[in-house]
């Protein structure tokens, strides 16, 4: 049994006029320290699955276990970075990044110093007293990442964290996130639309099929790619090879619907 186990998860959204099956038959095992990417067409249920793993919604069937415990419990040790940064506009950057420890009651001097150091590592300086809207999109994403890391979560869920950024910033952030996670040996799940990003950053790529979302195929990223930084990985021949394979597989998914 893995570090994170998803056991036969099904989910359906109900409204008055419709029932939308969103996920079907999801079984995944993720090891500690692993970096996994979810790839799939829009609306296939990736965000839904992250919300289930984070314990924010209860799946219709099945369960998500982290370290042998149901993830629905509070204090689950999961950090979830939403599809947009959702920094609190009425809080300063400092208040924003310390909100996690403040909420779960672990805020002390050591944690504060640690978090501020992390902000420094993300090349954000002199922003502590600024408000989010005074920052650029890339800076806000980095602040959101620091906020997510501040509680020192065992598992990180990242929902398209780089999708709103320009290409250059995105490449830089990929490197930064990858090296940070490697140093702290974090387990992470990344949702992305970008095949290249999925290959460059992860150990495994899970390809989801269109609604209701199912795991269509799993790709293992070759060992030699994993050791490189995302930027270097993008220039490796093995990267292109895998890119082509996944691309074809994704294309074969499209016309079915």
């Amino acid at each position: 049994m893995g570090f994170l186990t998803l056991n036969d998860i099904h989910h359906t959204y109900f409204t008055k006029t419709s029932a939308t099956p969103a996920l079907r038959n999801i079984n995944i095992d993720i090891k500690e320290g692993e970096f996994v990417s979810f790839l799939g067409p829009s609306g296939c249920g990736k965000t839904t699955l992250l919300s289930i793993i984070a314990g924010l919604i209860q799946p219709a069937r099945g369960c998500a276990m982290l370290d042998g415990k149901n993830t629905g419990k509070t204090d689950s040790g999961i950090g979830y970075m939403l599809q947009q940064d959702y920094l609190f506009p009425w809080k300063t950057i400092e208040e924003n990044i310390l909100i996690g420890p403040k909420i779960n009651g672990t805020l002390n001097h050591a944690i504060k110093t640690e978090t501020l150091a992390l902000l420094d590592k993300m090349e954000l300086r002199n922003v502590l007293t600024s408000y989010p809207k005074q920052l650029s999109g890339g800076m806000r994403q980095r602040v959101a990442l620091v906020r997510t890391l501040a509680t020192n979560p065992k598992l990180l869920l990242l929902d398209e964290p780089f999708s709103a950024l320009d290409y250059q910033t995105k490449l830089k952030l990929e490197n930064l996130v990858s090296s940070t996670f490697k140093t702290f040996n974090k387990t992470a799940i990344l949702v992305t639309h970008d095949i290249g990003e999925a290959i460059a950053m992860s150990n495994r790529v899970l390809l989801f099929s269109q609604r209701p979302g199912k795991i269509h195929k799993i790709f293992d990223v070759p060992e030699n790619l994993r050791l490189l930084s995302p930027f270097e990985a993008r220039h490796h021949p093995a990267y292109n090879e895998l890119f082509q394979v996944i691309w074809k597989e994704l294309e074969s998914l499209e016309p079915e619907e």
Partner: protein
Amino acid sequence: MNPKNETEQLHLQYIKRLNKGHKQIRFYQLLIFLAFFSIWELASRKNWIDPLLFSSPSKIWELLQTKLTDGSLAANLGITLTETVLGFILGTLLGTCLAALLWWSPLLSKILDPYLVVLNAMPKIALGPILIVALGPNLTSIVAMGAIISIIITTIVVFTSFREVDHNYLKVLQTFGATRFQCFKEAVLPASFPTIISTLKVNVGLSWVGVIVGEFLASSKGLGYMIIYGFQVFDFTLVLLSLLIIAVFATLMYQAVELLEKKLIKNG
């Protein structure tokens, strides 16, 4: 010239233009003010308007001075101001608390929804006589009038704002294991401050209406009483004086709310 200096120069020019614009606006505002009172005075003296009904600025000014020296104005103003401020604070506070309660319990909010609509549609002023009989013709019943007039609309507006806070902010907090109270304190309430401030601004006006009507009905003191008394003895100078004083103090209250706004909404 180095570029830094040039930017500074441009900035100075910008500030100068801004100041000039301000001065112009102030000038026209003052002009309207003076024109209004001089035309009023003139019209009254030349009998273009009925001086008995519309009085004149000079007569009002004289009356103001007598009322100031005999201390009756200060006493009446003090009472009305106390009632209004109390009614205002009470109405806003209770309204916001009620909104928080409704947010806390979605079931309760659904149950109470039609009642809120009915209560909001009803003219609260009509409750005046009942309040006065129930609570007695004193400060309490008039404060109650000042509060009741704004409480329901505050509840509705603030609750709507609570409910419309982006759920993703709550999700962020929930991933940290936040309780419902923490969600309220860290996200729902601060996100609604702008709405609360604008209801405060509306409530300033409403509570004056409530209190003045309350004084019409029951009181033997206060500005509302001065108006009704002036009306009964056909002393419209007294009525207009009270009206002007109300205008001044309502404006001051409004300014106080704006000060609070600056304090509360720092990122604005």
